């Protein structure tokens, strides 16, 4: 139970605040607006964070990229390191934490079908490529391990190239000439559209990497620009990267920091993006907090007015035995209650508005229990902090002079 002393002071504070409803409302408006905006901003940035997180996961948060390049000191430029060999790739493939492995070979060559002729990006890979990058066929089939083994003259078209060369015609089973050599189209990929940077992700033709190398008279391993891998799960990503690094260092006898390969994943990007949203949230919340300080100053102002108006009352109270702490406590109760009421209204408004905003912008607004608790403590704290000066001013009044004040 609340002690009688505190209770009577709260009742007293409530009476005083109710006596002047308009003034109380206007004074707490600063706090209401401040808390409302803090709640909304936290809710919306929390929602944005969860949306970004799921999107990043679907964008391949499990993907690991291994390149035969060395990062130079500054990390900005790269130099060709050591090519991978089949033994290394088999060792990596056999790791428990790695589920898929696809070597990537790239080039651009002229492709023609009937009258259409165009230089097209060629990607050589294997059957795991589809699983790592989440490619699905709209029609036909995908590259098989046998195609890679045999170096078969088959290809899978990105949606853009299916449209470019065949239009409405069904390309499956047709032969197109890549660098003059006929290849059979065995499948067409589902379109992925443009990247945020505006690059068409569907403008390529996929071949078994062995076939592409044979076409260009290149040795298999030295032409690999990237080995794409997928970790079993995003939790195992770090462990997979560590294991891959360990295998390569052991087979290549590398000690220390002179790796002649580089390994990376989107996880860093994920972290960076999430970090950016965090910074954004802190920034926005700080801006909103400024209105809380302005609100606090409003409370201090009105409490000073209140002390002046109630000088006589304070004089009476001190005369009949109020100690300075009694007067301080009375006024602090009043400013804290004023601010806290504003805080409660702000939380409710913030909750309602963020739910409405969430349906408009189309991502969830998450009003967390923590943000509500922080809002309560913050608004109460502001009331007390900005109430201290007026309260002490009241307690220092000379009762003889104060009681004569009319």
């Amino acid at each position, binding site marked *: 139970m609340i002690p009688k002393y505190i209770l009577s002071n709260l009742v007293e504070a409530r009476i005083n605040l109710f006596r002047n409803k308009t003034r109380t409302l206007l004074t707490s408006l600063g706090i209401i607006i401040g808390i409302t905006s803090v709640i909304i901003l936290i809710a919306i940035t929390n929602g944005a964070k969860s949306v970004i997180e799921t999107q990043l996961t679907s964008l391949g948060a499990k993907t690991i990229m291994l390149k035969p390049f060395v990062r130079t000191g500054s990390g900005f430029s790269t130099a060709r390191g050591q090519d991978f060999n089949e033994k290394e790739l088999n060792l990596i493939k056999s790791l428990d934490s790695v589920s898929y492995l696809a070597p990537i070979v790239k080039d651009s060559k002229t492709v023609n079908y009937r009258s259409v002729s165009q230089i097209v990006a060629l990607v050589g890979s294997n059957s795991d490529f589809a699983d790592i990058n989440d490619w699905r066929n709209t029609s036909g089939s995908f590259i098989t391990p046998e195609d890679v083994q045999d170096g078969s003259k088959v290809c899978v078209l990105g949606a853009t190239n299916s449209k470019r060369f065949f239009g409405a015609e069904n390309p499956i089973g047709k032969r197109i000439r890549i660098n003059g050599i006929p290849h059979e189209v065995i499948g067409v990929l589902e379109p992925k559209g443009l990247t945020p940077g505006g690059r068409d992700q569907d403008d390529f033709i996929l071949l078994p990497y062995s076939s592409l190398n044979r076409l260009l008279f290149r040795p298999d391993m030295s032409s690999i620009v990237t080995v794409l891998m997928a970790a079993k799960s995003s939790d195992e990503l770090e462990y997979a990267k560590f294991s891959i690094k360990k295998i390569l260092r052991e087979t290549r006898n590398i000690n220390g920091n002179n790796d002649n390969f580089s390994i990376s994943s989107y996880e860093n990007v994920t972290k960076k993006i999430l970090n950016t949203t965090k910074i954004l949230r802190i920034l926005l919340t700080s801006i909103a907090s400024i209105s809380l300080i302005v609100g606090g100053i409003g409370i201090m102002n009105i409490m000073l007015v209140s002390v002046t108006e109630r000088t006589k*009352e304070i004089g*009476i*109270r001190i*005369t*009949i*035995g*109020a100690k300075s702490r009694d007067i301080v406590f009375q006024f602090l109760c009043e400013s804290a209650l004023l601010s806290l009421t504003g805080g409660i209204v702000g939380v409710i408004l913030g909750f309602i508005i963020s739910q409405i905003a969430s349906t408009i912008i189309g991502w969830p607004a998450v009003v967390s229990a923590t943000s509500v608790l922080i809002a309560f403590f913050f608004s109460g704290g502001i009331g007390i902090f900005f109430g201290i000066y007026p309260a002490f001013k009241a307690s220092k009044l000379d*009762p*003889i002079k104060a*009681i004569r004040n009319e």
Partner: protein
Amino acid sequence: MSSSPSLELSGINKIYKMGQIDLQVLFDVNLHIYPGDFVSIIGPSGSGKTTLLNILACLDRPTSGVYNFFGEDVSSKTNDQMSEIRNLRIGFIFQSFNLIPRHTALENVIMPLHYSDRHKNSNFKKMGLEALDLVGLSDRIGHYPNELSGGQQQRVAIARALVTNPEIILADEPTGNLDSKTSDDIMSLLKNLNSDGKTVITITHDNEIASQAAEIIKIKDGRVL
């Protein structure tokens, strides 16, 4: 009288500093007030009687001299200790009643109890009702000051003065704002309190009111005559 004085002023001087000028309002005041006394301090305005009352009331401190309150030197007390003395041992009655307007009669009466550690666990309402009963206002407990007549407001103030059961009642022009009929009622109430054992000190400029006290102390130009 055989008992030792409740309030004892010896050689009290009070000087106000008004910028460069020192204004002395009390000159070597010596005063003894015994338990159960009914004293009127009378003097024209500007005579220093309010200053004397403030010192007696533990609201102000003398510039020099010793004020013993029930044998204890008040000059060594802190402000909070002075507040405690006023709270528990002195009941205040003012010319303008000094009730707090947005509180009911009962709430005004029990206000001193909120400031008392001694009464932390007391039943405030019961004590307040008893005090209001003493002044004959049991039927007005829920009324606000502006709903009461002047005489009723002064009775509420007297109930507030009595609620902590103090030894001393200090009344500053208690009848100054009242008509003569009501004044008589209030004065007889004070006399009753005195005969019940309270020490009553009134301050007035009205000879007729003063004459109702057992002892009259005249003050003029800051000196007790």
